[in-house]
């Protein structure tokens, strides 16, 4: 699949990732991503129609453990790293209209 990495596509992808880009970053990223995606396009030469995907190298069953209480990180300790908190809650800008 030939991809044309335009500045608009870079901006749209950045928006999906909730990542602001500065204007002077967009052009260089477009050129670099174009080169990288052109290299990745070589995978299209392989016939993988009969190949199962590998999402994980280990043949793992979902491990279960006893549902027993054990000490963990305390709330105050965890909250101490928050940029803004009040009364044991993380503070963010209002996101519901009144």
């Amino acid at each position, binding site marked *: *699949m030939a991809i044309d990495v335009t500045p608009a596509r870079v901006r749209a992808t950045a928006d999906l990732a909730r990542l602001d880009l500065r204007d002077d970053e967009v052009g260089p990223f477009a050129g670099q991503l174009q080169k990288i995606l052109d290299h990745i396009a070589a995978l299209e030469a392989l016939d993988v129609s009969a190949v199962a995907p590998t999402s994980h190298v280990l043949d793992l069953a979902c491990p279960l453990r006893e549902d027993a209480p054990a000490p963990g*990180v305390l709330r105050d300790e965890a909250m101490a790293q928050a940029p803004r908190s009040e009364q044991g809650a993380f503070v963010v800008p209002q996101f519901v209209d009144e």
Partner: protein
Amino acid sequence: MTVRDPFAMTALDAVRAFRARERSAVEITRSALDRVARHDRAVGAFLRVDAEGALAAAATLDARLAAGDAMTDRPLAGAVVAVKDVLATRGLRTTCASRMLEHYVPPYDAWTVARLRDAGAVIVGKTNMDEFAMGSSTENSAFHPTRNPWDLTRTPGGSSGGSAAAVAARFAHAALGTDTGGSVRQPAALTGIVGLKPTYGRVSRYGLVAFASSLDVVSPFAQTVADAALLYESIAGPDAHDATSVDRPVERADLSRGASVLKGLRVGVPREYFGDGLDADVSAGLRRALDQMAAAGAELVELSMPHTSHAVATYYVLAPAEASSNLARFDGVRYGLRADGRDLRSLYGATRDRGFGPEVKRRILLGTFALSAGYFDAFYGRAQKVRTLIARDFTEAFAKVDVLATPTSPTVAFKLGERTADPLAMYLADVCTLPASLVGVPALSLPVGLGASGLPVGLQLIAPAFEEARLLTVAHGVEELLGRLSLPSLD
């Protein structure tokens, strides 16, 4: 044995000297701190030196020894270890070399850090790295680059370049790094030391800040294979905190056999790893090492692993895809940097713009694109299938041979700035280490000598999954056969 400079010692030497009361842990730790103070301004291996914590831990060890503790359950007591700044250390800032986590102080220790402390290691500080472990030169650190102790105009490789440089400069006896696509093996090769990536799942990832969760492995650096085995055996094993950690016995390497282990050993030499892009130094160094192994009785088996050349493309879809998902947690709300915004969306966007450097942004963009609607099957889905083909290459190879031998890096250490302008060129140089990462098998880089350039050359040995004991036993044999490198003095 009396050794004047504790940093001419290996970790095992230091442990023996401590137990024999020839050196106190405080003395050994002070000499590490002195060496760092003298030379790390030039090398830049550390982001943070924890003199107070290290000396306190050392004093505790000395007191225990004086009180009659034989230290039999503390196999690392006496050794000084550095830790990559991607592993959480309780009460000690852990930044991932990123502005995003510049002020982050973890409330807990990573599993591997706790195991080191339990084993009696003194943790001297946190080492520099490419931001969030994304890079192959340590130049993507938000704070400063690290320089190669062999030649200060060159990089130590990456992303665990600070840990590698710390061991090569003998600031620490050993170090922890993390290897996602070669981030321990490649810097080990470029700095002339040993780096072991264990099997995926052997070592808990609890407290490792995630980059690509299906690939990340906490991995030791050391001056010798015996020291690497000592660290590996201290950190391997199951941990209920990590659902991918495997509960299997951790077999110990047999270090009594020396080079005799090579007799009759079937060593696979895959021709795809010895292509056009190899430096003359690397190709000559590998040839010499393989010839000596053959002379010692190893049977060299030339073979083909036809999907090797697709590993770079496969990895640079899968790893960024996982990274773009993992790094979504850095949103300016619960911890880390926050840039204020009018609303939640602008807070997220501005925080991530200010917190992430260019390589991290590039990989988030690449990964987000590969996972986006309309492209998922063509990129991510296809890469997962090619991963299966690469795994088949290994299954077929290990049906014929005991271990594989390849270069670790196609080049010796490169100059600072040489590859920063071209991200794809930096990625392509990971070609020798990526396949073992994608397949999850254990792999080790071992110095085999210096090239004509005077820079170290690394041999990569690869074993089947969970065969670390075989890998270390063989590597120890090769090390005995070829002799150890003398590390640079820096004076």
